[in-house]
């Protein structure tokens, strides 16, 4: 036993190892990424861990493992679950033999996601149980219970931490890892092949299982009632942590229901909770899932208690909750003044939007394409990754962004309606492997005249530099075949493909120009590593030739360049020596020690 500071995702990972997990798959996505990484880092040697090519693939690999009786874990962010929803929906009918946990991390806020979707709806939609931890320490225990429950009921089980649980750290006591779970092996049986007749029978069983699960959950330690009074609060996830802290500071009789498994709702415990209550306030991030369950129980109880929450306008439907928001809601509920003094108003502060790092090769790629398309009517479709930040000033090179892989396909739709406009799709290397390839094949098959720019920085950068099929590195520390993007495009039938280093602007601009005028689908692969993969060198400096034209600042927006005391300066601790500024400078005023 040792006491350590552990991040929620690390606690979940160590809990899974303790539970004897055999196979772990996933696709990187904030805030879920560190779970799989921590398992790989702490692998006792007998756990198979992989970054899969996308979430659908990850879900299926994990399901296959669970068919044998092995314990499997698949990790992703909430939007990844959309990609994996096809296997998920059938898997709830087919079921599993070994415990299988589907970890989908939600991102209230959102901090780094396209949507604020609530995975608990997916649990309800697919009729699968869901665990909703309120802290890293609870998550450590809960993930172990999730594996046990999955095996007990023969169904995959959802695990739904939110950003504040995933990315906060707690003091935890971790015991030695448990034994690996023993898998019986795959046993041939008609139960593994889905057919309409089987689906009907399975659906009947699945619905019956919902009642059983609700009963199991009423007796589980993660759901409990404390306190007494005629007013009640039901809370889950991080909202429960905030509520607990608020309640410790006010003197009021409150009956508190902590919900750790929002679906299927623990009805028996819920019925006991509402007994004698006049009003209940529900505190949960994101959608009113528990609120709806309590409304249902209240309806069966003659309309008592009154349920206050998102549907009554007492709490917001969108955005993340905070201590202050919950304090104000509880204060209003129990009728005490919130007592917040108005905060001091700061002087004007500079906004600091997220930007591409100094030296990021994407800046050079965007700039080259911008130069090549100057004075032409063009639309630039973007995708998910660091390069979405190319939409910011002064580059302004991302006109659309929808979901993983959609840049290539949205461009095709635009092109079909406006054939005289140039349509250029940007996609990163990891996203290309994830869901970019079908879009390429579609463009070739239908001969749609678009240009695809692949920003190959040799890593999955935004989520913290995970390997992918193009890197040839795996999470088992082995080296495998590097999938070559050029040859892949060629095999897909793209007739015009160029690979070029974007840091060489002249060649990069030329390549973009040629690709755009090519009649039919074309591609440019911009190859230059993410700055996190190497040490800075050839640090650039401004010399006496600077005429203060500010072109470097106006055109490329590098965070290392700023004006201080009337002089353009390059912050040497930020510069990576990409030399884009030096190539943009019209007077030769920027150069490096090597140049």
């Amino acid at each position, binding site marked *: 036993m040792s*006491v*350590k*500071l552990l991040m929620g995702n690390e606690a979940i990972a160590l809990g899974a190892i303790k539970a004897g997990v055999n196979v772990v798959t996933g696709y990187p996505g904030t805030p879920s990424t560190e779970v799989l990484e921590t398992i790989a880092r702490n692998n006792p040697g007998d756990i198979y861990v992989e970054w899969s090519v996308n979430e659908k693939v990850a879900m299926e690999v994990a399901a296959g493992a669970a068919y044998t009786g092995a314990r499997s874990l698949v990790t992703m962010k909430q939007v990844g679950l959309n990609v994996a929803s096809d296997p998920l929906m059938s898997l709830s009918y087919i079921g599993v033999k070994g415990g299988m946990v589907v970890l989908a991390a939600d991102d209230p806020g959102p*901090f*780094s996601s396209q949507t604020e979707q609530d995975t608990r709806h997916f649990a309800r939609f697919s009729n699968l149980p869901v665990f909703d931890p309120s*802290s890293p320490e609870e998550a450590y225990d809960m993930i172990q219970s999730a594996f046990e429950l999955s095996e007990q009921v023969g169904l995959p089980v959802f695990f739904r931490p939110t950003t*504040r649980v995933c*990315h*906060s*750290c*707690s*003091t935890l006591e971790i015991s030695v890892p448990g034994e690996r779970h023993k898998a019986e092996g795959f046993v041939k049986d008609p139960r593994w092949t889905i057919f309409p007749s089987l689906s009907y029978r399975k659906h009947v069983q699945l619905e019956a299982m919902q009642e059983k699960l609700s009963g199991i959950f009423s007796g589980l330690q993660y759901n409990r009632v404390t306190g007494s009074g005629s007013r009640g609060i039901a809370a889950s996830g*991080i909202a429960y*942590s*905030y509520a*607990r*802290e608020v309640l*410790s500071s006010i003197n009021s009789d409150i009956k508190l229901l902590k919900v750790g498994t929002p679906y299927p709702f623990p009805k028996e415990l819920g019925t006991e909770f509402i007994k004698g209550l006049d009003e209940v306030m529900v505190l949960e991030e994101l959608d009113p899932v528990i609120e709806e369950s309590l409304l249902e129980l209240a309806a069966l109880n003659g309309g008592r208690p009154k349920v206050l929450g998102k549907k009554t306008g007492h709490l917001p439907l969108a955005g993340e909750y*905070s*201590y*202050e928001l919950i*304090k104000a809601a509880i204060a209003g509920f129990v009728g005490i003044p919130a007592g*917040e*003094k108005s*905060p*001091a108003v*700061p*002087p*004007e*502060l*500079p*906004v*600091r*939007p*997220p*930007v*591409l*790092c*100094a030296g990021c090769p994407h800046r050079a790629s965007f700039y080259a394409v911008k130069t090549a398309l100057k004075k032409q009517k063009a639309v630039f479709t973007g995708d998910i990754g*660091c390069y*979405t*930040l190319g939409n*910011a*000033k*002064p580059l302004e090179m991302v006109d659309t962004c929808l979901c993983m892989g959609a840049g290539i396909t949205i461009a095709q739709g635009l092109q079909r309606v406006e054939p005289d406009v140039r349509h250029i799709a940007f996609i990163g290397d990891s996203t290309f492997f994830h869901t970019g390839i079908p879009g390429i094949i579609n463009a070739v098959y239908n001969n749609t005249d678009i240009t695809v720019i692949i920003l190959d920085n040799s890593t999955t*950068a*935004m989520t913290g530099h995970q390997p992918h099929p193009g890197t040839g590195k795996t999470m088992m520390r082995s080296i495998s075949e590097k999938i070559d993007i050029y040859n892949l495009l060629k095999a897909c039938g793209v007739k015009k493909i160029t690979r070029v280093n974007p840091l060489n602007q002249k060649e990069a601009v030329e390549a973009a120009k040629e690709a755009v005028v090519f009649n039919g689908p074309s591609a440019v692969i911009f190859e230059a590593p993410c700055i*996190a993969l190497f040490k800075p060198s050839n640090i650039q400096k401004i010399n006496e030739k600077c005429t203060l034209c500010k072109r470097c*600042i*106006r055109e490329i*927006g*590098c*965070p290392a*360049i*700023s*004006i*201080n005391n009337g002089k353009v300066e390059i*912050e040497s*601790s*930020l510069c990576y020596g990409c030399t884009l500024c030096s190539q943009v400078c019209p007077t030769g005023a920027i150069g490096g020690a090597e140049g």
Partner: protein
Amino acid sequence: MKFDILIAGVGGQGTVLASRLLAAAAIKAGYYARTSETIGMAQRGGCVVSHVRIGSEEASPIIPYGTADLLIGFEPSEAARNINRLAPSGRSVVNTRVIKPVTASLDTVTYAIDPINAFIRTNSSETVMLDGYALAEKAGSVKALNVVLLGVAAAAGFLPFDKDDLESIICENVSPRYVELNKKAFNTGLEYKRK
């Protein structure tokens, strides 16, 4: 004992490591600790806020407004942006070196430092302002800014644990290659405040 520390800075400055080191030192001193980070989409260059909550198991991961005991500001505008979480009795250590966002260089927003510094001083019961980058450079690398600021906070008596404990935690938690650099940076911070 309850002690809440807020760390505010810019992505890439080493704020997250600073929060982990403080929490590890608190655990070593026998306290319960929690930390939490708010990080945006960018790998570097965006706003980063870390919360370190020491002493209470019941605490949520985020420090409520008006209750923090200490603010360590890695950048003046980021310190000002978050100072509302500081308690009236709260103290601050702030690095004075400005990191101008790209938006400020493009002249779309202004960055006036004097009112920002004045705002920090007005809203903090005791403030130590220093050029942390200069001290970190002196110690060997600007990357050691985080440990320099921890040294300053420790020497000022702003932390609820012993400076020697913090130093040993730093040595245990950084890569062996950087132990000497971090030791030097921590002591540079200590000495700065002692002068």
